[in-house]
Every structure is written in C-alpha cells, then in structure tokens.
C-alpha cells in the first residue's frame, strides 16, 4: 500500500495542502492561526504599553511636554493615510471573494502605496527628532518652553525612548506588512486567488488591520497627551 493514499478528488482542489481534509478545514486553521498570532502581538506591544502607562503616571509633566513637541498635523495626516489603507485592504478582500482580479491587484497596490507613504512620513518625523536633539543618548537636550513646568532631562528621555521604541516597532511591523502585501499582490497578479481560495488575502488583511489598530492607539497616546494651550 502507498504511504500517501490521498483521495483523488482532493488532489484536484487547487491550493489544498495534503494534510488537510478539505478547504474548509484549511481555511479555518489558517485564520485561527493568524488570530492567535495577533494575540501574541498584543502581548508583544503590551509590554511597551505597560511601560508607557507606568512612566506616564509617574512623569506626566515630562510626557506632556515631550508630546507637545511631536508634529501633530503630520501625525494626523499619517493616521488618515493608515485608515485609508485599511479601507483598501477591506475592499481587496471583497474583490478577492468576488474574483475580480484587476480590482484586487489595484486595491493591493494602493494599500502598499499608502503603507509606503506612512513609512516615508514617519522617516521624516524621526529625522526631525535627530535635528531637535530629541534622540535619547548623549546628545539629548530638551529645550523647554518658558511657560512649562520645569522638565527633567532624564525623564524626558524616557518619553522619547518609548516614542522611538513604540513607533519603531510599529514601523517594523509596517515594513513586514508591505513585504507580505508585495507577495500577495504578485500572487493576485498571477491569478492564484479565486472566490473559493483567497485565504492568504484574508489573513494578510487581518495582520494589516492589526498593525493599523496599534497605530490608532499609539497616535493619541503619544501625540495627544496634553495639548491644552499653556500660559
């Protein structure tokens, strides 16, 4: 007897791997896998959110002062860009379900473009931090506005440490996401997805939405701590 008595009917289903009984089981496994992975991601970012929470409670003054130096209009525009990318992802899943290949490819390319715009803007913001001496380390210097309560240089560094760690980790996830969507776009272009089989689009979409949501939390936590007019 052969070792791999795969029923013939299954072998003709494109995209079905040998160890699954049917497409339903494969799709369920893939999406459960991605949800669980996103659970681990919550714990991963959770460590930084916890540190943020502790230090924001302790050093509110420095966190508020640091937050005011972040570029609010640019951060807001970037948030909008990211929300648009989530829209194109959601639409691309729909396009995959309907089997509209060109629409799918267009939406995926748009998603990648939005992602790249976000990363470009982020790079611009990071660059600002270098010119303003807001990068933690030996050259760090926080120039305080005369109207503010005295700002401790060390504590201000903690705010910017968290700023770089959190936005950096988020940007890393964006870069990975752009890479994943590059592959997905290529697969879509080659016509690999059908209304019956488009799980990769769905689970890549889940990942993208997650990274998007992380930013939705990061934006208010970092940019909007205390924007009341001072004086």
């Amino acid at each position, binding site marked *: 007897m052969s070792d791999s008595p795969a029923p013939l009917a299954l072998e003709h289903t494109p995209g079905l791997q040998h160890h699954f009984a049917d497409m339903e089981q494969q799709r369920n496994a893939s999406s*459960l896998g991605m949800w669980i992975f996103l659970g681990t991601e919550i714990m991963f970012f959770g460590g930084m959110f916890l540190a943020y929470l502790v230090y924001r409670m302790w050093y509110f003054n420095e966190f508020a002062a640091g937050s005011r130096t972040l570029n609010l209009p640019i951060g807001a525009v970037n948030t909008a860009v990211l929300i648009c990318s989530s829209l194109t992802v959601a639409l691309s899943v729909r396009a995959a379900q309907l089997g509209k290949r060109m629409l799918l490819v267009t939406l995926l390319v748009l998603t990648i473009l939005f992602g790249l715009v976000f990363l470009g803007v982020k790079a611009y913001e990071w660059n600002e931090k270098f010119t303003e001496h807001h990068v933690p380390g030996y050259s760090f210097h926080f120039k305080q506005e005369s109207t503010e309560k005295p700002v401790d240089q060390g504590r201000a560094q*903690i705010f910017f440490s968290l700023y770089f760690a959190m936005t950096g980790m988020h940007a890393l996830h964006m870069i990975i996401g752009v890479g994943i969507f590059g592959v997905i776009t290529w697969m879509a272009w080659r016509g690999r997805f059908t209304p019956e089989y488009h799980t990769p689009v769905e689970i890549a979409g889940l990942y993208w939405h997650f990274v998007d949501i992380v930013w939705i939390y990061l934006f208010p936590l970092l940019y909007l701590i205390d924007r009341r007019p001072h004086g």
Partner: protein
Amino acid sequence: MATAVSIAAEREHYLNKEYGIRSWLLTTDHKRIALLYLASITFFFFIGGFFALLIRLELLTPAGDLVQADTYNKLFTMHGVIMVFFFLIPAVPAVLGNFLVPLMIGARDLAFPKINLLSWYCYIAGGILVLHAMLTGGLDTGWTFYTPFSTAFSNTAVVEAGLGVFINGFSSILTGLNFIVTIHRMRAPGLTWSRLPLFLWSHYATSVIMLLGTPVIAITLVLVVLERAFHLGIFDPTRGGDPLLFQHLFWFYSHPAVYIMILPSMGVVSEIVTCFSRKRVFGYYFVAMASIGIAVIGFFVWAHHMFVAGMSLYAALIFSILSYLVAVPSAIKVFNWTATLYKGSVSFSTPMLYAFGFIGLFTMGGLTGLFLAALGIDVHVTDTYFVVAHFHYIMVGGTVMGYLGGMHYWWPKISGRLYPESWGRLAALIVFLGFNLTFFPQFILGYLGMPRRYWQYPPEFQVLNVLSTAGSTILAVGYLLPMVYFLWSMRYGKLADDNPWNAAGLEWKTTSPPPTFNFEETPVVTWEAYNYNELPALEEVRVER
C-alpha cells in the same frame, strides 16, 4: 514472526522514505523536525551540562582555584541561558510534542508544517548567536539579564546573547501556535475534547503559556538591547527609569516559563503511569483541568521572585497567596497519579521508573516551593542554594525525568527499535541517585546560608559541596548512558512491533516507525481515552511474544 519483522524492515516509513541532508534540512514532516530538534537539543544539553560540571568542579574546594570570579560568573550564566532557553523550554514540546501531537489526534501533520520547520531554524539561529556570544566575550548577567547591570555595566556580549534568546523565542511561539491550531482543527473524527490524551491537554496548556508569555520577554529583551546599543533609557535609573519594571516584565514570562518546562513532562507522566498500571487514569477531568489551572494561575505568581526586590507588602501578600494556590492543581496531579497506581497492575519498566522519579522529585521541588512562597522564609533563603536546589528539583528532577521517561516510552515508535531494557533501568536508577546526591545537599547548604552565584565559600560548607560535586559526576554518567544505548539501538536494537507496551492511544495504532503521513487512512475514534480495562495486561502480551 521472522517474516513479519523482515517485512517491517523493508516497509517504507518516514525514516527511510528519503535519504540525504536536503531531505532532512528541508523536511516539513513533523516527525523528522522532531528528530532535528532531538539532535540539536541534545547538543545544547551537553554543552549546558559541561558548564554545570565546571561549576561543580570549582565548588569542590572553598577557595576559588579552578576559575576566576569573572569566569565563574560567565559559567553559571551560560549554563542557565543554555539550559533554560535551549534545552528545558523546548525539550518535551519540540521533540516529543512535535512527534506525537499529530499522531495522537490522528492527523497527517501539524496544521502549518512549513512554520514548524521555520521554528527549528529560529531555534538554530538563536542558538548560533548565543554560542557565538559565548565564545566571543561570554555573558555574565545571570540568565535573568537584570538591568541596569546588563544594560550599563556588564562588559560581555549582552546584545548578541539577548538577540539570540529573542530569536529563539519565535521557535516557542511558532510551536505553540501550531499545537493550538492543530488540536483545535485537526482532530480525527470521534476524538472529542473529553477523549483527548492528557499529553495533549498538557501541551495545549503549555502552548497557551508559550503564546501569551514569550512575546513579553521578547519585547523586554528588545528594550534591553535597544538600551545597551542605542542608549534608550526605559530601565535606566539614572534617568528615572525603573529596573523593577524590567524584573516584573522578565518574570511575567520567566515564571510561567517554569510551567512551560514542567507541564509537558506532566503530560508524559500521565501517559506512562496509566499505561504501566494497566488502569484508566484516575480522575481524567481533574488531571486535564489541572493543566489548564496551572497555566492560568501560573500567570499571576511572577512577583514571588521579587519579594526582597522592593515591593509593597500588600502586593507581596497577594503574590504569596497566589503562589500557594498554584500548588493545588499540581497536587491534584500527584494525588491522581498515585491513585491510578492503586490496585493497578504495576510494572517497573524503564519509562515507569522515570515516572516514579518524576513524581518523587517533583513533589520535593513543589513542597520546597511552598517554603519559598512563604514571605518570612523566603527572605531568609532568597538567593541561597536552597532556591537553587528547589528549582533544580522542578526543572531537572521534574522536566528531565519526564523527558527521559517519554523518550524511552516512545522510542520504539520513533525509531522502530527497542532500547535494551536492563540498561534502561540501570540508567534510570543512576540518574535518580546521582540527582539526589547532587541537589539534596544544596537544600541544607542554602538553609545554612550559602549564597548562590559565588565561586568561593567558607570552609565549613565543604563536605556538602563535595557530596554535591560527586553526585553531579554520577548524574553525568546517568545522562550519557541513554544517549549511548539509544544510538546503539538504532542499529542493533530489536525491531519493535507497532505497540510494544500494548498501550492505548492513536499513536500506537499506526506502524513503528510511522509512514510519512502517519496513518494509512484517517482513524475514527469510538473509545474513551485510556481504555486499559479493555486491553490485555502487559505481562500477557509479553508471554505471547
């Protein structure tokens, strides 16, 4: 019989289907990946063990004569890092779990075979980084990477070792993810949750911890690396950062990590005890739920590592109570294994000897854990050899005994050969004696006040230290023996039939070694777990053969 054996030798199975290095390094077969893990884990085990022997040699005499203090710091750090992250955490899940989870649920493979292979490469990449760090400067922070020593003061390869452990963490995460999805989605028809072998329950609980805990230490190590390499200041007290925050984040993973180590071995012991008692395991639901209970409560006890680190008394009280609570599900397991033995038809085969060893040593380790959960006693024995003895009873006495027991129990399935039984029993005995001689004196040493992590000690502690060092050499022999006769048996061992222990469980219903896709056809389960009352006794089977 002879013809049956020769047919078995010619039959195509996962080991002889393909040959060559590519067929191993690029395999997606969970059984082959388990063997890749087996080889690499054994390698790291002996490196870690080598460091342990050097530590014990140094402590043979009160003076620091074999190595300098700095070298000693590096020795115990590398021993800890390698044993914890590269042996104990992956040992049972990545070897036995990888091999058995699909077999036990009647699946052809894990849900994500390529991710499974990726997990092994993460393990290897992390291992290479850590080994390289070890050879180029070493690491002297202790396996705990405590800040600010690790971030600001240590002159060793903290960044590289930290990254190594970080990358290795993905191997845990990916394995846990694979197990959970597989157990949820790929069980054979009829294999309901209440028919699941306890090995799978314990691996399910382990996977939950791996998935929720590992990411936290991952980000913590990233922050340490960023602080050291790029001067971020999150844990830096000179800038207002809090080293205690690091300790909380570290132990949030690293205490549950102890349950990552012990839970899979508990699953192994559940399988062995019931098989060699020829009785259904006593209180199946309690044993299963105790695994989940340990996983859940285990997440809320981490700060008992920090009683003297400067915590509010009320927080310490709560963590103390919770630490007592986690003993309840552990005790349920021990009592239920004991009750399974009662009126069972017990046979003292090698796996059973290891299971007995596990129960005894784990009980000792667990009870001394209660000493440490008590605030008053903890203050007295913190950072002494009492703690060292306690966690070695759990990790070595528990995890390694379970791992070796499991290796013997499933070796016929893995290799298709029988190991030499009398050598097996002898090795089990040597391990048990050597272990106790090594670590029991350390309880006394710690209680008398000998602190851990020093390369010198006052002369009055020498007798107990000599006993401990003597024990460690016996233990080393006990660990080398199985490796030798396992290798020997791969070529010269008697051919095993499909079910040499006449055990219940789907993994025994396929051939030994199993074919690449595990089962000729998907099995349908119509029986309850551990239906030993319906199976003939082990002795009868032996006589028939």
